[in-house]
């Protein structure tokens, strides 16, 4: 600690260079924090998928629905314990920027398959009794300030579900989750009765997908094949897969983006390494005379090297700290932004994971220390007499 003022004074003396290096480092760490948080949110969403649930959809595309009667046929497949259906409603609340995922569901059977959605019994009863009833996640309720009994309207942007005006809903239940046990559970969803949609559209629509609960996860592939075989010669052929694979299909659409962002992050990290290395090289080159003086008055070479590495460490710590704070702030405000906020909410991000914070700090400090290592070794190796002669 006795050398810390010496280290800090040097950083402060060349504050423009220090500031720009810290800023560059902060940008690097900020990118790392936000990107990793985004990817972690995606991973959490995938991990929350149950391996005891299968999803059956139209083999051609998700935009094509399946006949309602498929449910009874699927129920007859050995190993299937329960079947429910659902439709992506695509409802807009007041303005498109208020996006949140909303589904019409085969309520009683569907919710029974998702025990991670914890709904108070009295609220569940109230929801099941009310045709216009809605179940909303805790985050969604907090976002719009909804309370039990509140009424709101959604208007779908999907043609078959457009009925000449918005549908009206009443908040009858708010679901929560044990995030320690089910960490990826999305608390930003809204569910309502599929029958309400069916009747509102003049009984013309059919389910978008079926969800099956199976006895034995190890037989998921076999059961999926059996379900798809049932409709192999139908007009609407099906594709059945585990819930995890189904969600991964969505994620695959943004997979290239993740790769791209990772590649950019790597390039930025490498650039910051060079920037910091340059900063430290300049610092050592400019201070050859000073290094000569330190060594002359008795500072051991190891201590001189340590002082230079300490400067690098402080640069890294300041940059990483700034980047982490910036990242945490951006992750906190992202869900409120248009477009990107929709994505973040869909993946139910719960802020920056402490592990990401620790790794980001370690990364920043490691980059800085690595960048300072070569200049520090050069300072270590310089012989005092030569330094005095050439300084």
């Amino acid at each position: 600690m006795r050398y810390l003022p010496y280290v800090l004074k040097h950083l402060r003396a060349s504050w423009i260079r220090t500031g720009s290096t810290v800023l560059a480092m902060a940008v690097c760490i900020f990118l790392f924090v936000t990107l990793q948080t985004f990817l972690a949110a995606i991973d959490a969403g995938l991990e929350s998928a149950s391996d005891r649930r299968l999803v059956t959809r139209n083999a051609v595309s998700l935009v094509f629905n399946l006949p309602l009667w498929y449910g009874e046929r699927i129920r007859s497949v050995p190993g299937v314990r329960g079947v429910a259906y659902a439709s992506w409603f695509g409802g807009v609340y007041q303005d498109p920027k208020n996006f949140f995922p909303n589904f019409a569901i085969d309520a009683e059977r569907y919710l029974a398959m998702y025990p991670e959605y914890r709904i108070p019994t009295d609220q569940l009863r109230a929801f099941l009794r009310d045709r216009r009833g809605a179940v909303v996640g805790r985050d969604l309720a907090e976002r719009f300030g909804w309370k039990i009994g509140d009424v709101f309207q959604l208007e779908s942007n999907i043609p078959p579900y457009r009925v000449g005006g918005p549908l009206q809903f009443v908040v009858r239940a708010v679901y929560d989750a044990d995030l320690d046990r089910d960490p990826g559970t999305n608390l930003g969803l809204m569910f309502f009765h599929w029958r309400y949609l069916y009747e509102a559209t003049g009984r013309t629509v059919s389910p978008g997908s079926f969800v099956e609960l199976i006895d034995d996860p190890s037989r998921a592939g076999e059961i999926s094949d059996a379900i798809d075989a049932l409709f192999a010669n139908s007009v609407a052929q099906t594709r059945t897969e585990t819930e995890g694979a189904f969600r991964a299909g969505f994620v695959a659409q943004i997979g290239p983006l993740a790769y791209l962002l990772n590649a950019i992050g790597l390039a930025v990290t490498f650039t910051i390494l060079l920037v910091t290395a340059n900063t430290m090289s300049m610092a050592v080159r400019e201070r050859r005379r000073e290094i000569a003086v330190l060594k002359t008055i008795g500072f051991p070479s190891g201590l001189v090297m340590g002082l230079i590495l300490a400067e690098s460490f402080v640069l890294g710590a300041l940059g990483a700290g700034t980047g982490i704070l910036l990242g945490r702030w951006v992750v906190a405000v992202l869900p409120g932004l248009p477009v990107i906020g929709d994505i973040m909410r869909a993946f139910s991000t719960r802020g920056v994971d402490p592990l990401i914070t620790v790794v980001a700090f370690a990364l920043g400090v490691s980059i800085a220390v690595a960048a300072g290592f070569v200049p520090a070794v050069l300072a270590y190796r310089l012989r005092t007499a030569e330094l005095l002669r050439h300084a």
Partner: protein
Amino acid sequence: MNAVEVRNVRKIYRRETEEIVVLDGLDLDVPEGEFVALMGPSGSGKTTLLNLVAGIDVPTSGSVVVGGTDLTDLSESGLARWRSRNVGFVFQFYNLIPVLTALENVELPLLLSALSRSERRERARTALEIVGLGDRERHYPRQLSGGEEQRVAIARAVVTDPIVLVADEPTGDLDARSAAEVLDLMEVLNRDLLKTIVMVTHDPRAAERAHVQRHLEKGVLTNG
């Protein structure tokens, strides 16, 4: 008793295949409390001899004993540790650390000691008082004149209470008046604090302040 004993010292620099003999079998004794001026033309080996006495460099052969310690027996880290306790340095261009105040510059060698911060500060203030700059402790080198910078450098050199003070052209970058002040100060350190001083200089007026003048010519001491 001698503070410095240099015996049959040779110093040879190798530049590719060429060997340059800088010091050639040189002997030098400096008694305790002596003030010696080393003079000679450029390239005569004055600074090399000073570096050997200060433990900054090692001879190719021969021995250098300072304060009873044979410096040729010490490793590089051992020499660094020895320098921090036994030698004070005064350079031609002062070599103060620009980002540190006068007080912090003087305190710098004490960072290597076991003293507490308050003890270090107290000693540094005392050293600044000795050189007459007690009121300039918060000033940075850029806020001081050349003469004042050199006096701060002298305070830094004596703050560890070293056996020997080595000075390489201490007045070489100063005007006549500042040079005289610095030399007055060195005389005080030698006379009142009994510091042994080895000073390299080109300046005859500076050399006159020393008790003994030695001349170097092509790596050999030519007169006493």
